């Protein structure tokens, strides 16, 4: 049909169908626009305000500048808390990845009677014993073990909570690698640690990466555990620091909060995008929390 020529009197039913299709399309786009607005509007402030010399509570960019970042880095509380967040995230990641890899390997390769039930119970435990539910005994435990007010204490507590899911996910990865790889290395005379280092770890590297990123992202954003266990301001991580910036009395410093907030958020988003691009999004019972 050439452009501009009218279709030769289509049957009435066809027109009705066409109109309905057009209406459905319009409805769809209106819905999508509303969804986009719902999700984007609260976020707009975080993206725009750090670059505004005089930010207000309304998202906007009236006086563009980059000076806020320079000012922020001069603030010792910002620098210190970011460093503390890095220590917490890396520390917990190392503990979780190392201990979960060993445990998952043992569970995957040695037949322990009822190991699936054990794993399931551990997983249930980790979803039931949350920071909110167990804040009181965890605080008192840390107090009695003299690890309150230490980065180590927070690392151990967070690692304990993350481990069941980490073991579960890694065991899945290890179960899917054929036993003949390890048997072959064994016939050549390799010992358990050699096999782990030369064969298993390289083979399950994607799984280790998933666990590493997941634990870092979770710890990076965690508020409650450091909030309860760390009282010394010099140990405060960014999650608690930013809260104290806006919960303290007086006028909130919007330049500082917005800039700090953006800088603190970026690593999480970047890590998510890296994992998403390299490994795609996969589900493992409660990967986020």
């Amino acid at each position: 049909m050439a452009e501009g020529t009218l279709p030769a009197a289509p049957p009435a039913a066809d027109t009705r169908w066409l109109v309905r299709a057009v209406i459905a399309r319009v409805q769809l786009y209106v819905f999508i626009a509303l969804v986009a607005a719902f999700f984007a509007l609260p976020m707009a402030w975080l993206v725009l305000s750090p670059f505004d010399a005089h930010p207000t509570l309304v998202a906007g960019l009236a006086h563009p500048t980059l000076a806020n970042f320079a000012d922020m880095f001069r603030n010792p509380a910002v620098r210190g808390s970011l460093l503390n967040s890095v220590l917490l995230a890396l520390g917990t990641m190392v503990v979780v990845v190392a201990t979960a890899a060993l445990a998952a390997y043992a569970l995957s390769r040695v037949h322990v009677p009822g190991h699936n039930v054990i794993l399931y119970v551990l997983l249930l435990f980790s979803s039931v014993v949350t920071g909110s539910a167990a804040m009181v005994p965890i605080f008192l435990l840390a107090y009695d073990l003299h690890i309150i007010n230490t980065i180590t204490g927070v690392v151990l507590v967070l690692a304990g909570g993350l481990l069941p899911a980490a073991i579960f996910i890694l065991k899945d990865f290890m179960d899917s690698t054929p036993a003949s790889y390890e048997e072959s290395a064994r016939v050549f005379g390799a010992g358990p640690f050699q096999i782990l280092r030369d064969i298993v770890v390289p083979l399950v590297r994607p799984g280790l990466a998933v666990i590493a990123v997941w634990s870092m992202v979770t710890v990076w954003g965690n508020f409650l555990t450091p909030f309860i266990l760390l009282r010394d301001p010099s140990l405060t991580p960014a999650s608690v620091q930013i809260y104290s910036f806006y919960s303290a009395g007086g006028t909130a410093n919007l330049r500082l909060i917005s800039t700090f907030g953006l800088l603190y958020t970026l690593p999480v988003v970047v890590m998510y995008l890296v994992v998403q691009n390299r490994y795609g999004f996969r589900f493992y019972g409660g990967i986020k929390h």
Partner: protein
Amino acid sequence: MAAITISQLTKVFANGVRALRDVDLTIADGEFFALLGPSGCGKTTLLRTIAGLEAPNAGRIVIGERDVTRMPPGPRKVAMVFQDYALYPHMDVTDNIAYPLKIQRVGRAARRQRALETGSHLGLAGMMDRRPAQLSGGQQQRVALARAVASHPQVFLFDEPLSNLDARLRMEARTFLKRLHADLRITTVYVTHDQSEALALADRMAVMDGGVIRQVGSPVEVFQRPANLFVASFIGSTPMNLLDARVDGGLVRVGPDAASIPESARGLVQEGEPVVLGVRPEYAELHPQRVAESIAARVVITEHLGTAFLVDLETAAGPVQVVVSEESPPDTGDDVFVLTNPQRSLLYRRDTGELIGPASSLAGLATAAAR
């Protein structure tokens, strides 16, 4: 290089399966020995127990002069090629071949050198820095072989190494293996469920069933004189005809008809004894008219095998198959007469299933004497 002596070997798995029952076996130094049997017969378990991947519940394994029964796999100095090759996907061909040497603490330069030499010898020279995923099935198989060769083992253990290849490559790889063994003369234990591989490759072979060795012998012996009804029915591209019969006045009576007593069983049976007559389809003739000591049959169907015809027959004693030359296939529905060859046919005791007569044929005995 070393001989392998296995005595009274028993393996019971945690789930109660008895995979090996009192297995006794001696494999000579430099021999190519095949373990053949249906799946679940214990052949792979036996191989894995020799490798040290399974611990036996009872019995002894000696490799060379050393009792290795309680030894972990490494110091046994064996090399194993797995069905899936177990090539490490994160290492290139060189690193894969050199990995056993790395474990043996051979220096980096020396092991890369040896990997390259072995690889070249096995026709892998141009692909030493590829990853396994970039290789064809046949090439992967050769890398796995090279890895085993480079580790300079006393014994090669092969677990169905050709079963992942397609038919044409399998023939090539078979010849390659045979040549490699002729070169290196390393004691080789080769597990397969494919009898043509075992017959083609092995110096000697064992047929296993239910955790027990049912027969040990050269391929010729096993093919010509299966020691019992299990081996008789298992070996052969078309299964051996096994007919219930009874000794009757110097003949074996099969239903209303009779056949001559196989030569090897003459004088060893009693009148009236229930036996099983074993006749390979290749070792029987069809006659259009009744001849002496023949079995009456009717042609059910004929199948073209390429160079011959397989004729399915119905006799009073049950179905019988006979291979006839391509010139004279009978028609479906023809009445014919089956004449067995007494030099080639076999007689088994019906109660024990054991072969009547010497276990080795004359040819087999001759081979054994030459050793």
